[in-house]
């Protein structure tokens, strides 16, 4: 038992889980300031005492990037917050971000031993606390780069996958350039996740820390168009490439009325607000149109972000329309909870069938159908089935579709020899190697829509594989990889 923690295990179990301090729902639904202020020092220290310091810390196994959680919590007990954040950063270069957006309830906190009978240790909130502490007190120091290595690596896409891969390789001493299609860095962290969940100053700071490792970032560069991957290997002189271009192409449901004015993909809606700052029109030039009544279709984080953003932009009624029940929603529980607090109306077991428009093609409503859960499908989840004659209309002026995304095909279609999966994803092996030597991929590009932390894990794995590839210059690629089929397999949509 630790000498650091004054409490006996039985006492630790009695300490209630510490909650974040939050902006009241009535206020925050009118602003874009961060919803949660996190734990203060006092609460963080109390929370840290709840950790049972298990001999076999299963939480670390539950963490996709394997953070040494027990150790960082012990550092908090010692008031060594900088030591704590350093510990985290050994495994995860973006703690302030992960502390805010990871679905901890499905990862580290899901397996927490304390959590078997009591609420789990608030690991995510502790992570955020130490990262914020370091930031507020300006205590960050750039990790030392011990050796410089030969090797120029291009990282395509500046989302969490690309940023992590870049940071890991830069720490190993390689020469790194990130290419980003948009004018700003961060991928979904920039254009998708709203300011009220992830303040931009945090993202800007994390970006600066990556640059501090000597990483060069070139924005406004669409790989596949501005230059191709083959040109990267040729005249640009890169030795390896990591693809982290995400899954940015939005799906539409394919129901009538989707071409109307007032229908957005969640991507467009969120990009206008987050990247282009349309909520500050006319100070910023990009417009956004939000009706008095808004319906958002979907049940994931994207849908939740869109509907809460619509509310903040002045929607009097903001509906979330989802065809299954709340239990099946893929969004983080905290976001669902916050959305409910903010007065979002959930229309569950409801499926849109048609968007209604007026003569000028403006949205005036949406026809929906009620659903019930039928037989389990292949995935074991009960399939929602329409209830006959249950159609009804909701009056809305804006419809936002958050029904999934696929990888953007620009690189796949301009890079011969990349093996492409059914849904347009780039196929990789466990080490993130693609079917082409020297090209690695990860994040949403290889998974379809997933999470920030899984993108980061892929970025880390790819960094190790790239390091190995450049160190040995030999990958045994063709023999190793069962994926290697036809080298000229093209993207099939």
């Amino acid at each position, binding site marked *: 038992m630790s000498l650091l923690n004054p409490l006996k295990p039985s006492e630790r179990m009695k300490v209630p889980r510490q909650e974040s301090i939050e902006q009241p729902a009535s206020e925050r639904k009118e602003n874009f300031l961060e919803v949660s202020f996190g734990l203060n020092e006092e609460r963080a220290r109390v929370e840290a005492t709840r950790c049972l310091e298990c001999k076999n810390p299963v939480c670390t196994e539950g963490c996709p990037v394997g953070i040494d959680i027990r150790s960082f919590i012990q550092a908090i007990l010692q008031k060594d917050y900088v030591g704590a954040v350093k510990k985290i950063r050994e495994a995860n270069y973006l703690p302030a971000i992960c502390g805010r957006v990871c679905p901890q309830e499905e990862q580290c906190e899901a397996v927490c031993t304390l959590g078997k009978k009591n609420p789990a240790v608030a690991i995510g909130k502790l992570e955020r606390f130490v990262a914020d502490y370091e930031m507020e007190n300006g205590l960050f120091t750039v990790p030392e780069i011990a050796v410089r290595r030969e090797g120029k690596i291009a990282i395509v896409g500046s989302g969490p996958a690309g940023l992590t891969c870049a940071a890991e390789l830069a720490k190993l001493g390689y020469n790194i350039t990130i290419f980003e299609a948009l004018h700003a860095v961060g991928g979904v962290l920039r254009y998708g996740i709203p300011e009220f969940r992830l303040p931009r100053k945090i993202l800007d700071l994390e970006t600066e820390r990556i640059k501090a490792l000597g990483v060069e970032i070139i924005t*406004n560069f669409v790989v596949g168009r*501005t230059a191709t991957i083959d040109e990267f290997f040729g005249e640009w002189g890169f030795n390896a490439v990591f693809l982290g271009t995400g899954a940015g192409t939005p799906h*539409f449901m394919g129901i009538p009325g989707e071409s109307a004015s007032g229908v*957005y993909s969640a*991507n*467009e809606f969120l990009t206008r607000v987050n990247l282009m700052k349309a909520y500050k029109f006319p100070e*910023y*030039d990009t417009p956004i149109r939000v009706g008095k009544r808004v319906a958002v279709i979907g049940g994931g984080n994207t849908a939740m972000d869109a509907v809460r953003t619509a509310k903040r932009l002045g929607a009097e009624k903001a509906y979330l329309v989802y065809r299954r029940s709340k239990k099946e929603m893929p969004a983080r529980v905290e976001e669902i909870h916050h959305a409910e607090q903010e007065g979002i109306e959930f229309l569950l077991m409801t499926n849109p069938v048609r968007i209604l428009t007026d003569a000028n093609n403006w949205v005036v409503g949406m026809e929906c159908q009620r659903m019930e859960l039928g037989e389990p499908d292949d995935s074991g989840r009960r399939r929602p089935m329409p209830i006959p004659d249950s159609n009804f209309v909701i009056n809305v002026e804006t419809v936002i579709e958050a029904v999934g995304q696929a990888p953007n095909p620009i690189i796949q279609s301009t890079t011969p020899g990349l093996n492409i999966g059914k849904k347009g994803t780039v196929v990789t092996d466990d080490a993130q190697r693609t079917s082409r030597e020297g090209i690695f991929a990860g994040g949403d590009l290889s998974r379809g829509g997933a999470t920030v932390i899984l993108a980061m894990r892929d970025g880390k794995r790819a960094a190790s594989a790239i390091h190995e590839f450049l160190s040995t210059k030999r990958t045994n690629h063709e023999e190793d990889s069962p994926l290697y089929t036809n080298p000229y397999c093209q993207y099939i949509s």
Partner: protein
Amino acid sequence: MFPILSKEPLSPTITRFVIYAPYIAKKRQAGNFVIVRVIETGERIPLTIAEGDPEEGSITLIVQAVGKTTKLLCSMGVGDHLVDVVGPLGNPTEIVRDSVVACIGGGVGTAELYPITRALREHGNKIYTIIGARSRDLIILESEMSACSDYLFLTTDDGSYKRKGLVTHQLKDLLDAQVEFDAVYAIGPLPMMKAVSQVTQHYGIKTYVSLNAVMVDGTGMCGGCRVSVNGTMKFACVDGPEFDGHKVDFDELIKRNRTYGDFERESDRRYCETHTWERQEVVK
């Protein structure tokens, strides 16, 4: 940062800019466009690449001042720079060979048509070019277009220059005169491209039109630029911007493009209140 290397007025409201953008200059092909953000608080707008000079590392953009962003851009000069220019985006134009083609440009659309006409010329086509505009001062690139066409026809809606009438009148006359076109390339305002497509559909002539949908990213990420082509949804920025004019739902796009009309007028009004916006002198 993308510096403006030179600037030249083409009409009282249309300006030609040469911008330093070396990567784009190297890769661009006829039909490609860039997305531009003029200032930090600005919006992202698509502009066709009229020409590129890989040696100098520059691209040419031709801009008509119609709203706040374009007026702001047109007020800038050599030494100023655009904060963002990204491209080349969109698919290059499908260039036919050794055929008889009509190139039809309306207003500032002529600027987009120019690189295509040049490419068509290089591929051994016989080219009938028709340029139309509302009035004389909106006719641009007359000498450039004439240099890469076999025949050049000009029309103005008000009759202030050359033929009074619409480009479709001229096109019909050519068709009546038994000119057998293999393909038509039409770029201009949506109603014009729609009218041209209606005429050519009747004759079964393959018609390429370039759709100026509202765009944000220009890389297929937002779907804001979606258009209906042959009843299916396409993203103009990555599937286009050129499509078969006989299959495009023009009426739908015309309505969609009005989505932000009131915002655009508001931005423009505010800009004009605080800036003197003058039509520029042009020496023709």
